[in-house]
């Protein structure tokens, strides 16, 4: 410890300030120790911003001091622990769960020295030595592609056979090769599987080719790399570990590197990490003074760093510059691949991790995989079909056994059975031909039957569903109504297997900030010294430009000011005015905002942008600027604020960062007038405890009133307090702080108590109200969703009043609702209020039996109560209350609680849940829900990365669910049922024939046709129809949101429909088989001709069946359905033109007979009559909502056609 106990200079390179304590003069001190490295500036922190933390209680606490507290005499020993401390506090709430776990272990690991065997040695500017064996680091090329030309086939096959269905078909294909079975010829036996594998492989190959292309682009970008003393451009892929790389502003980092020098004399470099963690604010990185002082060409030494890992918030290394003492390096000294250099002219770094070792690559993970509800239900029907398959096969083998038993004596001489091989030599008198006894023969028959009837379980379905989802996703992405103009962002389909779930959503769980609101904070009003200033009507939009060195600086965002307040601040005299000025000084200084100056087209004017992690702070700083307190410069040691045109320099003597336990932050400022002031800013709940109410009781009272009114109109409030510190108080604090910050154990708690010690007896200055504006169209969207029978739950970290007021403004809550509020501070009271809620629900339920007069209920519950409820297993009761309520509003909930609430519903009902959010705190909820939607907004991409779908605006939920969800569900349901039907029909036709072949598995239908049936003859229409058909127009669906109920009630896919369509399938197969059978009985018909007739009639019949159910006929639908029939015909003709097949020319012969055409017509008509009649009856006499809406739509269309002007106006509205 420094003997004089004075504060070490935070930044010696800066001009000394008048009140700064005299600089320590110890000549024995290591000169580097005083250098700002690593400066624990608040700018560095990744800790949760205020806005974020207000909403989540799960953050780690942190207290930092904006000065170098490293012991000057022992930098090596303390710096690792310092690093680890920083790492610890920098654990962001936003890291995904796995990396949080990792960083925990790494934090523990970083406490000890980096052992040589766990380290990687990087020789600066000596790539050959660095990469010499045994190191063998990967080069910097990136491979997101999965396959190479050589590995494609084995790897792709390996991946595809992960599907159980494919294994089933593989087994059947292999079984077919057993000589006794050989049902299909070898080629035909493998064709279906090969086709499906082939289509998938082509799709994968195409996707991989695109990845290859983008990899190639990425790998061939250039960066300047030091070679022979000169920086030369080098392709990214050729950069090696140890290379020295030079970057200029706005360049993207090609690899992870340790910063060695920058254009800034203090070694600062700003980077944007949006590609890495989605945070759009700038982060600061530092070069070590030791490395800065050497020109890069002369740099030599070795960096010892940890092995590559996924933790983007941790880095542990030391650098040894040619024999000099090792200097420790931490996260603040590395720049990671994917980041962009900003506001820094140049920066030079040494590559430490390249290519697949870089953190961004290690962190990249694919979209989560979920299974759609429909697919799960589909498995139920697949099992039913499998049972049917087994039954069919058993029947065949049983009958075959009986037949053989009856004819057992004659089998030897029956010419078509020929049990013995008579042609053989005399020795093989009773040589058997393919005969293993009746029992074995029955088993073989069974297995052959499985092979023959395998399409009962539709193989094409899997691949069709994939193609359909790709097509549906294409149209969702292309939809202009889900295109966000503001961010120029399209809708994103990240998960490709739950499209149809969008049509069945029953519960929507929504985050508030950034999802319902824009998370673009706007300063609205202030309560200054008990006076409310919220009249901004007369005020002008004031950016408050200031002139400095002939350059006009203007804040990027202008704020409308209250003229009275502005006047008070500008010209006001007396204590009141100076307190008001203090308030805005507090707003300008008590934050972690960095002003970034941007050039404009006008060289004399520059824009100041306030970069920071908290949108609230940004809004407050912009407001302070508008009211004349303009933050111009911030370094770790001082802040320059332009106060009505005069620049004032404030020293940052100390800073207690925001943490969610204290719910406030404070800053100790050395003012130009040599006073020391402590500014505290925080949530009202935490601030009123530390405010000395005796100082100005009337102000306190008035402020409380104002706060209440602010939060009831939905504003986010913060309370600001001040205290002047005496020199002794400050020194006392400083001692305590240094002691705490160098303590080895429990540093966090010590620092917190230091903060608590000084943050007391505050004088209340006032409060601010910041508006988080609602996103466009949110109230309308919520109303539509509610009309559609979707329950919207809002889960927010905000306090109850704010949450309720937002609830009103977005029409979630209405005045006629009865509110049930549960906010309890203890287990007991929580139980009681829950019981009360239940009795209230029951009472209301018994009062109003008919749904018309039902009182709508709203449940408002806070995070604390949820904790108690989840702790005490009273979830059941909560669930009971919650489902009885129309609206549920959960306030002050932590991220994990959000997931818990989703789980509450998911576990207890079979209803589909959807979670929508924008921030990292929504990730767990998004992953928990059946469908997770990320809003790509202000708060980074964490939510988007975890989501299944991503979009720009909350209101897109309406077209997504009500239109696309409805369509996708309806189409996919029909497609699955239809697939079952068309394959079953074919199998039944085969089955009937088997009964007339002595129960042997031969077919009249050519084996190629039977193989092509499900993959070529009938598959294209199902795919196209399932992508393009629309039961109702977008306009109708949006106009009548109730139509969404069809999906919630599972109207398009259920057991009843399955049975119906299967009965139809049996009927049609009977018609297809028996009408020709009866006509051709006793005739000279050959099997090939009859087979061709059956093939064509099945294909035409199932296609007509589809055609009858198509609702919207576009030219594509026409082309594909009729084209399919024509294609089948052509295929049959081609197959019958091969002279070495037994059926040669049959189709030509049979098409020449009148009977063929007569039968074809009869089969189609008789086959379709039941379906047609049932459809006519159902649609006319038992119409469902969709049917009625279709009729309305049709009559609307014809009306539109008669009145073209009307159509114009309605279509623009739609």
């Amino acid at each position, binding site marked *: 410890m420094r003997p004089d106990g004075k504060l070490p200079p935070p930044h010696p390179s800066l001009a000394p300030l008048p009140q700064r304590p005299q600089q320590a003069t110890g000549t024995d001190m290591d000169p580097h120790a005083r250098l700002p490295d690593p400066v624990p500036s608040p700018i560095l922190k990744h800790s949760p911003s205020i806005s974020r933390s207000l909403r989540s209680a799960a953050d780690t606490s942190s207290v930092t001091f904006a000065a170098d507290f490293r012991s000057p005499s022992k930098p090596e020993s303390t710096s690792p622990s310092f690093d680890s401390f920083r790492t610890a506090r920098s654990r962001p709430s936003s890291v995904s769960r796995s990396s949080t776990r990792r960083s925990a272990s790494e934090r523990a690991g970083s406490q000890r020295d980096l052992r040589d065997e766990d380290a990687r040695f990087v020789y600066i500017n000596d790539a050959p030595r660095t990469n010499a064996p045994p190191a063998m680091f990967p080069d910097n090329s990136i491979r997101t592609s999965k396959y190479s030309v050589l590995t494609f086939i084995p790897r792709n096959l390996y991946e595809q056979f992960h599907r159980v269905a494919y294994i089933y078909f593989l087994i059947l294909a292999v079984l077919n090769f057993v000589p006794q079975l050989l049902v299909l010829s070898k080629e035909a036996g493998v064709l279906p599987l090969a086709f499906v594998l082939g289509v998938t492989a082509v799709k994968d190959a195409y996707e991989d080719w695109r990845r290859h292309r983008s990899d190639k682009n990425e790998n061939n970008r250039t960066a300047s790399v030091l070679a022979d003393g000169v920086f030369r451009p080098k392709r990214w892929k050729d950069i090696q570990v140890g290379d020295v790389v030079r970057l200029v502003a706005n360049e993207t980092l090609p690899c992870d590197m340790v910063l060695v020098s920058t254009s800034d004399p203090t070694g600062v470099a700003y980077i944007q990490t949006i590609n890495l963690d989605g945070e759009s604010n700038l982060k600061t990185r530092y070069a070590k003074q030791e490395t800065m002082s050497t020109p890069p060409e002369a740099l030599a030494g070795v960096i010892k760093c940890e092995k590559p890992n996924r933790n983007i918030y941790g880095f542990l290394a030391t650098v040894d510059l040619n024999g000099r003492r090792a200097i420790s390096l931490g996260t603040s000294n590395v720049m990671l691949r994917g980041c962009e250099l900003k506001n820094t002219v140049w920066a030079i770094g040494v590559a430490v991790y390249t290519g697949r070792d870089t953190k961004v690559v290690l962190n990249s993970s694919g979209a989560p995989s979920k299974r759609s509800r429909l697919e799960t239900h589909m498995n139920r029907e697949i099992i039913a079909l499998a049972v049917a398959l087994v039954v069919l096969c058993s029947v065949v083998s049983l009958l075959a056994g009986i037949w053989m038993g009856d004819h057992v004596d004659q089998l030897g001489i029956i010419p078509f059975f020929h049990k013995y*091989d008579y*042609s053989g030599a005399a020795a093989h008198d009773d040589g058997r031909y393919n005969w293993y006894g009746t029992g074995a023969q029955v088993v073989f028959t069974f297995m052959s039957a499985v092979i023959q009837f395998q399409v009962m379980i539709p193989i094409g379905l899997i691949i069709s569903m994939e193609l359909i989802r790709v097509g549906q996703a294409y149209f969702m992405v292309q939809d202009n109504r889900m*295109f966000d103009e503001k961010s120029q962002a399209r809708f994103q389909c990240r998960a490709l297997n739950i499209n149809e779930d969008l049509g069945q959503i029953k519960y929507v769980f929504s985050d508030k900030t950034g999802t319902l609101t824009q998370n673009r904070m706007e300063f609205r009003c202030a309560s200054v010294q008990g006076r409310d200033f919220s009249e901004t009507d007369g005020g002008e939009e004031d950016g408050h430009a200031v002139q400095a060195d002939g350059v006009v600086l203007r804040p990027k965002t202008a704020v409308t000011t209250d003229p009275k307040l502005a006047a008070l601040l500008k010209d006001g005299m007396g204590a009141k005015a100076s307190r008001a000025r203090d308030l805005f000084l507090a707003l300008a200084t008590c934050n972690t905002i960095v002003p970034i100056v941007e050039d404009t087209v006008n060289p004399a004017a520059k824009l100041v942008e306030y970069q920071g992690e908290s949108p609230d702070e940004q809004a407050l700083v912009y407001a302070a600027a508008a009211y004349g307190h303009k933050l111009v410069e911030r370094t770790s040691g001082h802040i320059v604020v332009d106060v009505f045109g005069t620049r004032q320099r404030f020293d940052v003597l100390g800073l207690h960062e925001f943490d969610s336990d204290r719910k406030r932050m404070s800053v100790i400022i050395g003012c130009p007038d040599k006073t020391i002031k402590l500014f505290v800013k925080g949530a009202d709940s935490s601030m009123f405890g530390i405010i000395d109410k005796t100082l100005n009781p009337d102000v306190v009272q008035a402020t409380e009133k104002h706060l209440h009114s602010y939060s009831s109109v939905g504003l986010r409030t913060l309370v600001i307090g001040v205290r002047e510190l005496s020199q002794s108080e400050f020194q006392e604090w400083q001692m305590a702080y240094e002691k705490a910050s160098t303590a080895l154990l429990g540093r966090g708690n010590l620092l917190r108590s230091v903060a608590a010690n000084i943050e007391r007896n505050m004088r209340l200055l006032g409060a601010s109200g910041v508006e988080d504006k609602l996103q466009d169209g949110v109230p309308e969207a919520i109303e539509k969703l509610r009309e559609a029978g979707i329950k919207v739950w809002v889960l927010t970290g905000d306090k109850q009043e704010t949450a309720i007021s937002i609830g009103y403004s977005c029409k979630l809550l209405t005045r006629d609702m009865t509110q049930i509020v549960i906010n309890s501070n203890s287990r007991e009271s929580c139980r009681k209020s829950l019981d009360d809620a239940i009795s209230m629900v029951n009472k209301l339920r018994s009062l109003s039996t008919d749904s018309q007069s039902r009182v709508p209920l709203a449940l408002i519950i806070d995070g604390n109560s949820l904790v108690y409820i989840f702790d005490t297993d009273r979830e059941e009761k909560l669930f009971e209350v919650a489902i009885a309520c129309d609206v549920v509003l959960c306030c002050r909930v932590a991220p994990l609680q959000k997931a818990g609430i989703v789980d509450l519903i998911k576990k207890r009902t079979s209803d589909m849940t959807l979670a929508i959010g924008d921030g990292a705190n929504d990730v767990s909820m998004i992953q928990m829900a059946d469908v997770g939607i990320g809003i790509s907004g202000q708060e980074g991409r964490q939510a988007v990365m975890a989501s299944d779908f991503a979009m720009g605006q909350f209101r897109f939920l309406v077209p997504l669910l009500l239109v696309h969800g409805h369509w996708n569900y309806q189409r996919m349901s029909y497609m699955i049922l239809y697939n079952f039907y068309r394959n079953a029909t074919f199998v039944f036709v085969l089955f009937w024939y088997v009964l*007339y072949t002595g129960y042997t598995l031969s077919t009249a239908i050519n084996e190629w046709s039977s193989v092509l049936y499900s993959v070529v003859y009938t598959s294209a229409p199902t795919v196209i129809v399932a992508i393009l058909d629309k039961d109702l127009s977008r306009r109708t669906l949006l106009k009548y949101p109730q139509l969404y109920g069809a999906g919630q009630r599972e109207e398009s896919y259920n057991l009843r429909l399955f049975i119906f369509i299967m009965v139809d399938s049996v009927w049609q197969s009977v018609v297809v088989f028996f009408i020709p059978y009866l006509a051709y009985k006793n*005739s000279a018909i050959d*099997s090939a001709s009859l087979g061709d007739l059956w093939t064509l009639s099945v294909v035409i019949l199932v296609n007509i069946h589809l055609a009858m159910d198509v609702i919207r*006929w576009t030219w594509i639908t026409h082309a594909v359905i009729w084209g399919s029939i024509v294609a089948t015909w052509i295929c049959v003709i081609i197959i019958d033109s091969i002279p070495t097949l037994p059926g040669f020319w049959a189709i*030509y012969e049979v098409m020449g007979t009148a009977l063929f055409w007569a039968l074809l017509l009869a089969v189609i008509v008789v086959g379709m009559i039941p379906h047609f009649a049932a459809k006519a009856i159902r649609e006319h*006499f038992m119409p469902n909502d969709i049917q009625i809406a279709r009729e309305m739509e*049709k009559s609307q269309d014809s009306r539109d056609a008669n009145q073209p002007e009307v159509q114009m106006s309605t279509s623009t509205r739609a």
Partner: protein
Amino acid sequence: MPAYSKFTQQELPACKPLLTPEIVIAAFALIGALFVPIGLASLHASRQVVELVHRYDASCVPVDDKVGFIQNSRTDKTCTVTMTVPKYMKSPIHVYYLIDGFYQNHRRYVRSRSDKQLRYKSAAHLTSDCVPEGDTADHAPIVPCGLVAWSLFNDTYTVRVNGVVTQVNKKDIAWKSDKNNKFGKNIYPSNFQKGRLIGGATLNESIPLSEQEDLIVWMRTAALPTFRKLYGRIEKDINANDNVTVVIQNNYNTYSFGGSKALVLSTASWIGGKNNFIGIAYLTIGGLCLSLAMGFLVLYMVKRRYVS
């Protein structure tokens, strides 16, 4: 904003048909109106066809051990049947043999053939599919190989009309396409029917397969276990009440599997042979559709629902 396109916005012009009562009734009525005449016409055509069927498998074997009788190569298997023609039969009169209970579609049977061997001379050795009638004991390939060819039908018919021998023309009984393209013109039978069990007819080894029309007809395997195959044509009209006497060489063994054999003489019409089924079916469907049309009409009248 991305460019607007009707396709990407799923707004392609489309027709949205609805099953309105008018359409339903019209559809049923139309089908009825179409099917009834077709049914009448085909029924009429079918009734024009004169068909004589005479089963002879039982009557042509005088002994109880029918299999032993038929397998014995020394027994005289000549058998004479006499039929009286009920109606005038216009030439050509098709002579068929009708076999019942012979599963020509049996899986063991239908696959036992080599189509390559029938067409290409160089493929004579491709007999692997033909087991158990692929090769002879000394491994010479049988042409034509396989059970299908081996079991070639070998009854013969000699027809007398009113005591006058009438020529049964056995030319052009097979499909032209088979003769020209499926069965080779330069392929001659060899090693055929030389095994220990005789399946049926033997073939003249000096005639190429493309001219062996009986074989070609036989090898076009029947779709169903009861089938007829064309034996030949009588190109002479037969008057009503004429006596037709057929001398049958009853060689073919249908007794081993309990099958039956019959001789069929039939004229033809545009609908094929005698086939009342299709006419009755059409009439039934037509009638059903007409009554459905009526039914729907009544239903729609009774329970009217306005399409808003």
